[in-house]
């Protein structure tokens, strides 16, 4: 079984935000509008955490793209009363929307705040409704959603590989954010496969994971900036 994971090279990332936008379009994440946004209900399955370090004039600004970390020991799945969120055999932390009852326990349990609740009925201009990504369902009001590592792309990639009569190759399955990164700062693949770039990069001396002391073992690694 592959163990899907991501490596984000912060030395290459410029914080342009293309991954955030690509994610929103790919996953049919609705725009919630000004009123809901003001209540903090904007849904960003991929987000960029920007922080400032130091004081003027010795200031440094850092950008950190943040998808769901698909933890090896996810705190969110343990609290789900209906098994709408669980970790599957390939290490992807799933969120099964029709199963979700919207209790939001997982949202609270997630130390990385990557889970979002759909407070409102998703809305698009009528003209756009036919032009959403047909590979991804539209989440109804009242369920929790998050980054799925674009699992719909995995479903299709596996099918294509089977049709071609071969195994899944590196690069067959890549989430939208990784694919669209203009500076090629993001890598995706099987963390357990020594041939995959991610499994080499995660051993880099620059590699770290967010809040490692929690023991969640995220499957998204960062490569720190080179000072």
């Amino acid at each position, binding site marked *: 079984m592959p163990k899907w994971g991501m490596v984000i090279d912060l030395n290459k990332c410029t914080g342009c935000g293309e991954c955030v936008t690509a994610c929103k379009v790919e996953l049919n994440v609705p725009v919630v509008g000004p009123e809901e946004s003001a209540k903090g209900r904007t849904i960003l399955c991929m987000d960029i955490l920007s922080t400032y370090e130091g004081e003027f004039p010795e200031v440094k600004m850092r950008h950190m793209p943040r998808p769901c970390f698909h933890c090896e020991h996810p705190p969110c799945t343990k609290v789900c009363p209906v098994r709408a969120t*669980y970790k*599957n*055999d390939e290490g*992807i932390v*799933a969120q*099964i*929307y*029709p*199963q979700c009852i919207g209790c939001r326990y997982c949202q609270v349990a997630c130390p990385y705040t990557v889970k979002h609740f759909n407070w409102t*009925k998703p809305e698009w201009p009528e003209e756009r409704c036919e032009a959403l990504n047909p*590979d*991804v*369902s*539209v989440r*109804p*009001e*009242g369920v929790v959603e998050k980054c*799925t590592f674009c*699992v*719909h792309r*995995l*479903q299709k990639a596996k*099918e294509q590989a*089977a*049709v071609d009569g071969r195994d899944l190759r590196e690069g067959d399955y890549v989430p939208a954010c990784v694919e669209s990164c203009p500076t090629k700062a993001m890598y995706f693949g099987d963390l357990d496969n020594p041939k995959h770039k991610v499994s080499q990069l995660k051993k880099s001396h620059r590699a770290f994971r967010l809040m490692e002391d929690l023991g969640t073992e995220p499957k998204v690694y960062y490569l720190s900036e080179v000072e």
Partner: protein
Amino acid sequence: MKIKQVILIGLLLPASLVFAYLNGRDGGSQPIAYNHNMHVQENDMECLDCHVYAEDGARASIPNVELCRDCHEEASTESEAEAALLSYVNDNRRIPWRQINVVPDYAYFSHRRHVKLGELDCVACHGEVGEMVKPVSEPFQEVTMDWCMDCHEARNVSNDCYACHR
């Protein structure tokens, strides 16, 4: 009625109930009294001749005028149904077929996966459509999660939620 309740009900009850509802409707709910038997049995056509993407696409597709036109440029029978078809073909109007077999939005269903990779016959899920003289107005098989999962289990196919849900 609030959409949330609707969705809840939608989740608790299998989607198949829609088809139960459609059952109650007039059997001739399709715009044209299409005769599968005539095409398949009498004219030796294959399912794939018209549902062209059933093997290679996620959706099998329902043929419309551009495909029908290949054979029905002019009347070849005296049937009323063909006359009805020809009016669509000649006016280049879309035939408003009712899609009978519907998989919910939150499930990823791929014909290619089932037909090409799983080597399933069309009849396994759709029944002997080729025998039908009346248009399809109800599904042969209610698509329930149990039904899907039983078959997956029997054939040793993944039953991970992410095998189908998205």
